[in-house]
C-alpha cells in the first residue's frame, strides 16, 4: 500500500476549477515527482494536500487514513510537511528562529535540539549564519533554511515545491544532493520541479499534470523516455 494516496482530487480557486480528478500514489521511502508547465496544478495539488486549500471532492490518505478536510496544522502533526515555493521564510526572524519554529508541531517539538543539530550537519553554512536575519541571506541559503525548516517538523512525507527555482547551477546540484539524502535517510519525498531533467534523474516515479489533470504517470525512467515528455519538457 502506498504511504500517500491521492484519489480523484478536485479543487477550485474561488469559482475556477484548478484540479480535475487528480490521482497518484507516493510509495514509502521513494521520491515521487509531479511535473508540468506553469499553471498545470502542481502547486495547487501540494496546497490541497497540506490543507491550505480544502478540496471540493476526492480523497487524500496517509497510511490509509483520510487527511483531506483536516486543518493544515493537524496535517503537519500527522507528518505531511511542505517546503513552499518561494521559500516563505520569516525575513525578520533569525536563521535559527526560522528553523526552530519549523519544530512547532507535535512531532518536531520534543526532538528539536537533536533535529537542529542534524540540520546544521546537513547545511554547515546555516550553522555559521544562525543569528543572521533570514531575509539577508542569498537565495541558495534561503532555500537551505526552507528545507531545514521542513525537516525540523520530523516529516514522514516531505513535499518540496520548486526547490531549485532561481538558483545558480552549483546550488541546484547541492539541492538535488540534499533531496537524495533526505529520501535515503529521513523522509519520503514528493517533489514538484520545473527542472524536469534533474527531477526525472532522481525520482522513482513521476506524474505529469496538464491543465489540472494527470495526463501521464509511471516509473521515472519510462516517463523520461516518453516521446511527448521529451519534446514538451526536455527539449529533445
Amino acid at each position, binding site marked *: 500500500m502506498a504511504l500517500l494516496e491521492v484519489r480523484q482530487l478536485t479543487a477550485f480557486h474561488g469559482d475556477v476549477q484548478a484540479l480535475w480528478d487528480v490521482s497518484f500514489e507516493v510509495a514509502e521511502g521513494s521520491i515521487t515527482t509531479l511535473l508540468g508547465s506553469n499553471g498545470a496544478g502542481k502547486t495547487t495539488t501540494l496546497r490541497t494536500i*497540506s*490543507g*491550505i486549500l480544502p478540496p471540493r471532492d476526492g480523497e487524500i490518505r496517509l497510511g490509509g487514513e483520510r487527511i483531506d478536510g483536516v*486543518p*493544515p*496544522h493537524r496535517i*503537519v*502533526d500527522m507528518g505531511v*510537511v*511542505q517546503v*513552499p515555493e518561494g521559500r*516563505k*521564510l*520569516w*525575513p*525578520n*526572524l533569525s536563521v535559527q*528562529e526560522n528553523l*526552530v*519554529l*519549523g*519544530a*512547532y*508541531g*507535535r512531532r*518536531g*517539538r520534543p526532538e528539536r535540539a537533536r533535529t537542529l543539530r542534524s540540520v546544521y550537519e546537513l547545511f554547515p553554512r546555516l550553522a555559521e549564519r544562525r543569528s543572521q536575519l533570514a531575509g539577508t541571506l542569498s537565495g541558495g541559503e534561503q532555500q537551505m533554511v526552507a528545507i531545514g*525548516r521542513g525537516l*525540523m*517538523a520530523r516529516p514522514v512525507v516531505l513535499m518540496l515545491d520548486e526547490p531549485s527555482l532561481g538558483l545558480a547551477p552549483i546550488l541546484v546540484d547541492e539541492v538535488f544532493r540534499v533531496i537524495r539524502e533526505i529520501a535515503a535517510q529521513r523522509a519520503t519525498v514528493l517533489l514538484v520541479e520545473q527542472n524536469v531533467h534533474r527531477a526525472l534523474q532522481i525520482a522513482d516515479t513521476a506524474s505529469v499534470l496538464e491543465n489540472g489533470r494527470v495526463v501521464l504517470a509511471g516509473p521515472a525512467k519510462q516517463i523520461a523516455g516518453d516521446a511527448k515528455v521529451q519534446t514538451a519538457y526536455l527539449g529533445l
Partner: protein
Amino acid sequence: MIETLVRVVEAFISALMVAGLYATMSYGLALIYGVMKIINLANAGIMMLAAFTTLVLWQTTGLDPLVLVVVVAPLFFVVGAVLEVVVVRRVSAAAPIVSLLLLFGTWLVMQAFANLIFGGDVRGVRPAYIDSVVHVGDVTLAYNRIFVFVAGAVILVLLELFLRGTFLGRAIRALAQDREACALVGVDTKRVSMVAFGLGSALAGAAGCLLTLVFPFDPTNPFGVLQLKSFTIIVLGGLESIIGVAFASFLLALAENLTVTLSRPQLENLVSFVVLVVVLVVMPGGLAALLRRRRLA
C-alpha cells in the same frame, strides 16, 4: 537661563516617565495590527473599561492600581480573546473598512455602556502617595509617574521575553511576517491570532489600569486622544519592535513636554497630530526606514 535648563531637563525626565504608559498602550495596537492587519479601534474602549474596572476594584478592595494591574491585564486578555472570536474573526477576510467600522462601533458601545453604568463624571484613583514628590537636585519628580513608568517598562520587558523566548511568542512574531508559512509548520493560526488579540487587549488593559494613577478620566477622555497618540507612535516607531515603539513613545512625549515647557500647555495635544502628519508626509516608513536609509547612504 538656569531656570529654563532645569525645566528642559524636567521635560526630558517627565517625557521618559509618560513614555512607559504610551509604549504599553501603543504596543498592543502594533501587535494586533502586525498579526492580523487590523486596526483595533476598540483599543481606546478597552483602556477605558480597564480604567473603570481599576477604579471599582480600588474602591472596593483598597488595592493600589500597581497591584491591580496583575488582575486587570489578564481580565482584558480574556475580553480581547472573546472579542476576537465573536467579532473580529468573522470579518478577518473582509475588506479592512469592515473591521475598522465594526471595532469603531465596539468602541462606541463600550463608551455608551460606561456612561450608563458610571455616568459622565471625571474620575481618578488617588492613593496616599499621589501628591508626593522626590527632588533630584533642582528637578522635581512625582512618585506616581515614576511608578507608572517602572510598571510599563516591566510589562514590556516581560512581553519581549515572551515573544522571543517561547514557541507561542515566536509564532506570533512569525504570523506577522508570513501567515501561510506558519500554517505549514504546524501553527494553529486561528488560535494564535486569538492569543495575539488577547495580548494586545491585555496591554491596553494594563495601560488603562496604570493611567488611572496619572490622568483623570471619564468614559470619553482622555482615551480618544490617547488612541490617536498611539497611531502617531506606531507610525513613527514601526510595528516590528518594542524598542522602536518605546523610542517613538519617548520622542512624542518629549515633543509634547517641550511644547508645554517652552510654549503653551494648550498646544500639547496638537503636537501629536502635527508629528503624525509630518511623519506620514516626510517619512512614511517611520524611524526604522529613516535609519535604513542612513545606513545605505
